[in-house]
């Protein structure tokens, strides 16, 4: 039908049918990925607005731009929106959703309707969260520590908790879908050892999502129960234990860090191999490192509690386990670096982001070693050192990788190229802005500036000004892609099926792909990353 309307253009998933219904009732994983992309992009800029307000307030030591209550809401909602509504779904729900069936040679995910359901659940929770924001927000921090959240906060904690509770199901369903798809939907010949590392990493992510998310869901529900009916769970005044909350919260929220970073590692393995024209160095080690991170990630949660009143023995055990989990991350960084050795490296935008990722993720990981050291953690926990550390992982790592992946697969998703020069400028701005924002915060933290401070002592000002200056550069770096990617939808060069001369099944079909991905189901007889079989030059992006 659509081909009649546009006889010149080949039929693809975008023009297969038209109208709101064809999008809102779609079961096509690629369309659902775009629905997610639009939703999380919106939430990213909502969270970014709160970050902007935080940085503006911290320009001066006095708390003069807004009241303390408003400031407390700003950082709370920045954290809640960015973690639950952007970072957790970011790469899996967009790129993962779009690419995993194609990388495996499948027509769709195992449960296309459940995939759509997960987006609707996400939207319900996001709308609820927006409602909470508009009607006054919450001031508990994204960590919801009891008994502040259960007894003392005067904001709408219950509704925010319900939003996060609902949001969790969308995450669980996506993870479930990926696990089943990976087991059951692989094309003939696509053995586990031939799967792209993108899929391995998402598989590990999905396992965490399915096992970990129910714990945060029940934890926020318990907060709501205590708040509404005063059942003594966390507040000692009614017989509860506030440290219990922290154990439950971090039992999910530490593995959640790996939910956010493993998909970035997934993107890296694809981008670095493509722009080095190399097979990945140590395929099995990189694949198993993902699994190791997923497993060990569940055993380190109490390193957030070193000064919270746990025993010295517990602290020793969790410090030791935290060092274990650092090993597989180190393995990955070394393997990516080795992959570049004797390659044919080109510097298109996705690769620039990948360079940035390796540097910033390495910094983020290495500063994690400081926090795992008990003697240091006592001093720097709950200071800006921690803020800097996790932003290096979450923004320097996860967001850089997300942008890398968006640029890398943009021609596949839309059929058009983004403007390369603008891409490079934005990548540069993001890298410079990021470092200027967060490097000073390591020093701030070691000097002793606590996190979540509305007003601060004068000696911290210079570093805070630097940080705010960096944040303004970072903001430009994030707004630019929004503009030029939208522009490219109409004006971008036609990309062709495989502009990067990349290997991987997703590049063997047309751009944008047809609704069922492949004209006929591919039969795989080769390993991933066979870059000796393709031209050694990347024709675009120089």
């Amino acid at each position, binding site marked *: 039908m659509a081909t009649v309307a546009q006889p010149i253009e080949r039929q693809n998933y975008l023009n297969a049918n038209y109208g709101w219904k064809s999008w809102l009732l779609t079961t096509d994983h690629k369309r659902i990925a775009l629905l997610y992309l639009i939703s999380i992009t919106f939430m990213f800029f909502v969270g970014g607005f709160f970050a902007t307000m935080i940085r503006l307030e911290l320009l001066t030591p006095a708390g003069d731009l807004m009241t303390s209550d408003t400031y407390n809401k700003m950082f709370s909602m920045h954290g809640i929106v960015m973690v639950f509504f952007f970072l957790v779904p970011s790469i899996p729900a967009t790129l993962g959703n779009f690419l995993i069936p194609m990388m495996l040679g499948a027509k769709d995910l195992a449960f296309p309707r459940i995939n759509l359901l997960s987006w609707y659940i996400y939207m319900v929770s996001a709308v609820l969260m927006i409602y909470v924001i508009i009607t006054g927000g919450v001031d508990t921090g994204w960590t919801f520590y009891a008994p*502040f959240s259960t007894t003392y906060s005067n904001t709408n904690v219950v509704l925010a908790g319900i939003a996060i509770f609902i949001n969790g199901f969308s995450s669980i369903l996506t993870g479930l879908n990926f696990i089943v798809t990976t087991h059951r939907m692989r094309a003939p010949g696509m053995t586990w050892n031939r799967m792209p590392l993108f899929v391995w990493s998402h598989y590990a992510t999905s396992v965490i999502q399915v096992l970990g998310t129910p714990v945060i869901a029940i934890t926020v529900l318990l907060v709501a129960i205590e708040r509404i009916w005063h059942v003594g769970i966390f507040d000692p005044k009614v017989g509860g*234990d506030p440290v219990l909350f922290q154990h439950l919260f971090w039992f999910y929220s530490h593995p959640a860090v790996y939910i956010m970073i493993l998909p970035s590692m997934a993107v890296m393995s694809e981008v670095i191999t493509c722009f080095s024209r190399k097979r990945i160095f*140590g395929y*099995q080690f990189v694949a198993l490192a993902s699994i190791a991170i997923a497993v060990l990630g569940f055993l380190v949660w109490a390193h957030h509690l070193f000064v919270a009143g746990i025993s010295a023995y517990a602290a020793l055990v969790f410090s030791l386990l935290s060092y274990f989990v650092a090993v597989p991350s180190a393995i990955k960084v070394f393997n990516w670096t080795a992959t570049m050795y004797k390659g044919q490296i080109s510097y298109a935008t996705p690769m620039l982001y990948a360079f940035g990722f390796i540097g910033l993720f390495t910094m983020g990981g290495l500063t994690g070693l400081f926090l795992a050291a008990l003697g240091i953690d006592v001093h720097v926990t709950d200071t800006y050192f921690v803020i800097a550390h996790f932003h290096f992982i979450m923004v320097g790592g996860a967001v850089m990788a997300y942008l890398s992946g968006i640029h890398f697969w943009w021609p596949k998703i839309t059929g058009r190229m983004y403007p390369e020069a603008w891409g490079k400028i934005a990548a540069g701005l993001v890298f410079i802005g990021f470092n200027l924002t967060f490097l000073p915060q390591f020093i701030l933290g070691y000097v*002793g500036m606590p996190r979540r*401070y509305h007003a601060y*002592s004068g000696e911290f000002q210079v570093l805070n000004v630097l940080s705010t200056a960096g944040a303004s550069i970072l903001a430009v770096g994030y707004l630019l892609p929004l503009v030029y990617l939208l522009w490219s939808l109409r004006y971008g060069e036609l990309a062709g099926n495989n502009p990067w001369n990349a290997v991987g099944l997703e590049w063997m079909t047309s751009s944008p792909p047809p609704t069922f991905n492949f004209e006929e189901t591919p039969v795989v007889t080769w390993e991933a990353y066979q870059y000796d079989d393709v031209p050694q030059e990347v024709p675009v992006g120089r």
Partner: protein
Amino acid sequence: MWQNVPLWPERASSFANNVDALYVFLLVTTGFFALLVFVLVAVFAIKYRQKPGGVATQIEGSLALEATWTLIPFGIFMLMFVWGASVYLNEAQPPKNAMDIFVVGKQWMWKLQHPEGVREINQLHVPVGRDVRLTMISQDVIHSFYVPAFRIKQDVLPGRYTTIWFHAIKTGTYHLFCAEYCGTNHSGMIGSIVVMEPNEYAAWLSSGASEGGMAMDGQKLFSELGCSSCHRSDTQGRGPNLAGVYGKQVMLDTGSTVVADDNYIRDSIINPGSKVVSGFKPIMPTFSGLVSEDQLMALIAYVKSLSQPQQSAQQAAAGPGQVPAASNTGNEKVQ
């Protein structure tokens, strides 16, 4: 501009040098590895940049290299773990003869009390060169007692005492921050630690010590609240005789034993039915809501004084000059 940008907080406690030494070690080792990765990435990116007609050399991997970059970092991590743990363990256990300070955190202020009875708000005066142990509790939400110059931090919980200690090595005034987000005025829950020469401290203490000491406050409360009618000091009444109990093992009616420490005594006042001493009936009413955290601390100080030689409670109130010595000997005899 840059002279106003400190890279370290002052090193004003005996822990500070240990923590900073570990910090420098971590900076050097992680700096080395960061530099290694950056340089390799940069060198590879330039040296192996795409050239017309160039062909990438495909390499499958190398078990030897994988083993190298698994085991060497692992070894270094273990060194970091052991060093970090040793610094921490050194801080974990307060010395037995430390002088006591009692801290109550509430939204949004610190209330601090010296055993001699002197109370302070958002400010703590301590002598240089002495071990000081803080016993802390919150009246409402979780707070965290953080002194960057001492490199110490400990969450202050509602419903349970936590302790922390330090040994100041340098006189001066240092930041006290609340490090655990506690609501509206969290960033205003700040204060200072004033470290003084011992003789100045003694003078400061005597100028403020007119209230009779915490143990005597506790003793007064003990009779006002009617505790003394059951917890008799001459004989076993309906409740256990509390003389000599503090810090000792106590047999419960369940057959298990607990140490009668600060937390146990507090629980026994707030929630008396939960851990009843063997041989007694659970007849004590709860005092939850009737006594404040400050009063609980005073009661505990009194119970503690019952385990010290008879005169020490009076001595504690007598004069700041002898105070440290008196509480020292008392403690040593108990333990």
